[in-house]
């Protein structure tokens, strides 16, 4: 039996390590991302790049397809971003680099998607993602709550049933040890 347990533990550990390595490697190799194509690209900001003067020079987007896109910005890039309190910034990077960096950081921290517009290889605009239908994905929401509740109720039900079974067994075993007096006490 011990051999089986040790084998399973080794298999589990061996399974976990290869899973961890690609994740860590991905984190360290952000340079493997590609430049965005001309047109619009949407995604969430994962990495912000600044120069030695802490001026924004670019960022990495994670798109819906899981691809990493490295976006470079310059002084002519327009920013149209709203922060959590609804205050909207519309400016070009060259006019207000500090605020642009703040907004980009805010977008990343809130996990708020952005859309980048690229023309002839130059990033012309970074804006909030076009708002879609807020009522979408209700099926996913329902699934999450269903799974959570089903999980808890199933577990509590199993624990409760085992408790009752064990209570009965404890009384039966006590009855065997103490004899008819215990049985009579329970009946009374």
């Amino acid at each position: 039996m011990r051999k089986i347990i040790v084998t399973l533990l080794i298999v589990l550990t061996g399974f976990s390590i290869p899973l961890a390595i690609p994740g860590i490697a991905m984190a360290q190799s952000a340079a493997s991302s590609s430049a965005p194509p001309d047109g619009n690209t949407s995604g969430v900001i994962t990495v912000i790049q600044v120069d030695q003067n802490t001026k924004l020079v670019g960022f990495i987007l994670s798109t819906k397809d899981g691809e990493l896109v490295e976006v470079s910005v310059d002084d002519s890039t327009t920013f149209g971003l709203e922060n959590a309190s609804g205050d909207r910034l519309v400016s070009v990077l060259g006019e207000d680099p500090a605020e642009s960096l703040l907004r980009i950081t805010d977008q990343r921290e809130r996990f708020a998607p952005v859309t980048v517009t690229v023309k002839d290889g130059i990033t012309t605009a970074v804006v909030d993602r076009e708002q879609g239908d807020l009522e979408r994905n209700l099926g996913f929401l329902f699934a999450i709550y269903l799974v959570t509740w089903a999980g808890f109720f199933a577990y509590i039900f199993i624990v409760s049933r085992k408790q009752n079974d064990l209570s009965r067994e404890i009384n039966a075993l006590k009855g065997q040890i103490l004899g008819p007096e215990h049985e009579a006490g329970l009946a009374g």
Partner: protein
Amino acid sequence: MTALPKIRLIWLGVTAALMALTLWMIFLWVPTEINQGNIQRSLYFHVPVAWIAMVAIVLVAVASVAYLKTRDEKWDRLAVAGAETGVIFAALMLITGMVWAKPVWGVWWTGEPKLTTTLILFFIYVAYLMFRAYFPPGEQRRRLAAIIGLMGAIDTPIIYYGAQLWERAHPSAVVGSDSSIDGPIGLTWMVATLTFSVLFVYVASERYRLRKQEDEVMALRRAISLQPSRTPSSSMDNAEPISSAPAGGA
């Protein structure tokens, strides 16, 4: 009614009331998040569940240390209760996270560090429980399980700081951090975290009680096996549960 069931009943009532309040806040009170839409409401469950999954492994580690120091079986029971409850929360964390990721990220799963280390946490729980299930009962099992539980807790800070350390797609920690999320969204998160913490205490205490009953059954079987005149062929290892036991003692 004895004092203990009364406390459990009150605790269950508090949990139910808090859960009702949480659901009201999630679905009727807090506004819809502008970027993700309604699917963001799932995070009011996902984040607290994830938080509790990490707290549970810390509980396992603390109970394991206490057991190794005192050799008191109550700490071992607490570690088991923490691990089994923790594996439920960890499984729910993974499932709810995947269902959220599909519409928001476009994929069910990515190999990013926070997700990977969380999956490892789940495997640590599973390994801990498998070890306890298959290893022969006794002092050696409790001692080795305590060591596994201790090692498992190392994963917790890696998960918690994973998003900050590796700057990947997963949002940074919300619970227990200097988060900028405030207003109705922050308040709903706080209430949901409190509610799931209370639920965790309730579920873990029920599991603790079950473990205590299991130990009591083992002790009674051992006592019966030492009474040759009453149970000549019984022993602790081959004793079967008594299915026709008298009811009414629960």
